[in-house]
C-alpha cells in the first residue's frame, strides 16, 4: 500500500485573543505533522510554539540525512526507531524553549505544548506533551489518542473529578507538563496502526474547548477532503465563541475498496 496522506491545516487567532500563539508545520515529504500551542506573556508564546515545531522538523530532517545522529535522551523500549526519533526531537525542542526561557528576561512562564505524528508505512508514531490533542476517526468512532497533561485531566484519571466537573473547572488551563518549563521533559509516545479510511486530527485546545467530540466526529465524517474539514472545524470553533487560538491539522488515508476480489487481483498481479 502506498502511504498517500491527504492533509489539510488551518490556524486562526479566534475571536478574543490578539495574538495567535499556535504554530504548526506540515512536512509531507517526511510524513511528519507537528502542532504547538505556546504560552507566556508578550510575544513569548508565539516564539515558544514556533521554536517547538521548527526544532522537531529540523531534528527529523537532520536524522533523515544522517541516521547516526545522536538521540536526545534515552531511547524508549518497545517502540521503533522512528518513534524514538520523534521523542528525541521533542526533547530537543524542550531544551531549545527552556534555554530561551532562561535567557530571555521577562519571559518567565514561556512554554509550549506539542503534538506530532509521523507515518512509516502502516505505522504511525504519536508523541505529545501538554494539552493539545490527537484524535482518530475510524469506522465512525472518534478516539482520543493522547492524554492531556493538564491538572484537571489528571484529577479525572485519578477519579477525583468527573468529566463534567473538569469541563467547567477554572483550572482547565493549568498544565502539569509542557515544553520549556524544566530542563528535561517526559514525552508520551505511542504507536498506532494506520488503515485505509482513518482520519487523524491534531488540534490545540482552542478547538476542544468549543466543540464536543460528537461535533468534531461529524465534521471529520462529513467533509469530502481534509482541507475542507480543517476549515470547517476552525469556523465552528469561532462561531461557538472562539475564546482561544484554534489550530487543526487533518490527515486522511483515502479509502479504497479493499475486498476479497481486490486482494485476489493483487495476488495474481504479484505472482504474474
Amino acid at each position, binding site marked *: 500500500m502506498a502511504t498517500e496522506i491527504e492533509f489539510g491545516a488551518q490556524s486562526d487567532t479566534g475571536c478574543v485573543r490578539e495574538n495567535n500563539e499556535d504554530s504548526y508545520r506540515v512536512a509531507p515529504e517526511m510524513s511528519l505533522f507537528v502542532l504547538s500551542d505556546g504560552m507566556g506573556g508578550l510575544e513569548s508564546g508565539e516564539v515558544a510554539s514556533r521554536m517547538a515545531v521548527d526544532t522537531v522538523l529540523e531534528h527529523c530532517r537532520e536524522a533523515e540525512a544522517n541516521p547516526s545522529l545522536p538521540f536526545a535522551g534515552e531511547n524508549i523500549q518497545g517502540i521503533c526507531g522512528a518513534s524514538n526519533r520523534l521523542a528525541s526531537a521533542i526533547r530537543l525542542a524542550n531544551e531549545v524553549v527552556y534555554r530561551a526561557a532562561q535567557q530571555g528576561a521577562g519571559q518567565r512562564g514561556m512554554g509550549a505544548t506539542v503534538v506530532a505524528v509521523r507515518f512509516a508505512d*502502516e505505522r504511525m508514531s504519536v508523541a505529545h506533551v501538554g494539552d493539545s490533542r490527537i484524535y482518530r476517526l475510524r469506522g465512525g468512532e472518534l478516539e482520543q489518542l493522547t492524554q492531556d497533561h493538564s491538572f484537571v485531566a489528571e484529577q479525572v484519571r485519578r477519579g477525583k473529578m468527573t468529566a463534567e466537573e473538569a469541563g467547567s473547572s477554572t483550572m482547565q488551563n493549568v498544565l502539569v507538563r509542557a515544553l520549556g518549563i524544566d530542563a528535561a521533559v517526559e514525552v508520551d509516545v505511542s504507536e498506532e496502526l494506520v*488503515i485505509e479510511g482513518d482520519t487523524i486530527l491534531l488540534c490545540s485546545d482552542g478547538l476542544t474547548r468549543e466543540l464536543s467530540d460528537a461535533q468534531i466526529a461529524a465534521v471529520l465524517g462529513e467533509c469530502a477532503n481534509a482541507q475542507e474539514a480543517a476549515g470547517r472545524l476552525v469556523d465552528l470553533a469561532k462561531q461557538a465563541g472562539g475564546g482561544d487560538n484554534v489550530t487543526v491539522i487533518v490527515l486522511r488515508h483515502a479509502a479504497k475498496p479493499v475486498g476479497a476480489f481486490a486482494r485476489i487481483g493483487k495476488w495474481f498481479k504479484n505472482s504474474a
Partner: protein
Amino acid sequence: MPKLVLKFENSVLKEMAVGSKEVSIGRSPENVLVIDNPAVSHYHARVFNEEGRLMLEDFGSMNGTFVNGQRVKMVTLKPGDSVGIGKHTIVVSESRDLDGFTSGNGGSKPAAPKINETVMLDTKERREFLQKVAAVGESAQVSPARLKIPTLVVRKGRTNQREYSLNDKLTVVGKSSMATVKLKGWFAPKAAAQITRRDDQTYYIGAADKVPSVNGVPIAHPTILKSGDIIAVAGVELEFVFRD
C-alpha cells in the same frame, strides 16, 4: 503529603512522607532513605517537591532508576507510580495522615534483602541486558514493575506462533508485514485488530479491518484487556494473560 513506600518483593520495608525536605535514596547511611543492597548506588537518586510537584531525579546511578518499568533521569511522580531501584520498589502514594518517618514491620529494623538475589551489572552489561530484554521480552530482574509479561496464547486458528509476548507498544494481528501475530491464509485481513499499550501496564484492543470480540462480545470501542480475556478476530482465538 505524598508518601513513599519502600518494598522488597511483597513486603513493605519502610514508609516515608515527602515534605519540604528532599528524600535522598542510596546505599550510603547518610541518605534519608537507605537501601542497603549492592545493586543500589551510594547516592542513587532523590525525591523532592518542586512547585507542588513530586520530582524524582536519578544521580547517574550504575543500575538505573525505573518508573513503571522505564528508565528515567528526572521525572514528575504521581500517585501509583512504581519506582524500581535494584530489586527494590518504591511505590508513590498520597498520604494525609502520615508525617515524617515511620517504619514498617511493626517498627522493627527492616529485614535485609538477600544479596544473592540482587542483579549487579556494569554499564556495558546493562546495555546488552536491556537490549536482550527488549528483544526476547525476558523482562526480569532489573525492573520489578515489569515482572509480569503480557502474553497472547493462540487457542484457535492459523498463526505463525503459538504464543506471543507483548513487548511493544503496538501489536498488530493480521497478514501485514508489521503484524506480530501473523495470520495465515489467502483471505486473512492485512490488519485485523491492534493492541496498544497506553500506560505501562494497560493494554487496549481496538478494531482495524475487522471488529474483534472480547469474551464473545464485539467491542464498540478500544477496550482494556484483562488477564484471561479471549479475543476472537478473523478466525483466530487468542487468550490474553499476564505470565510470570
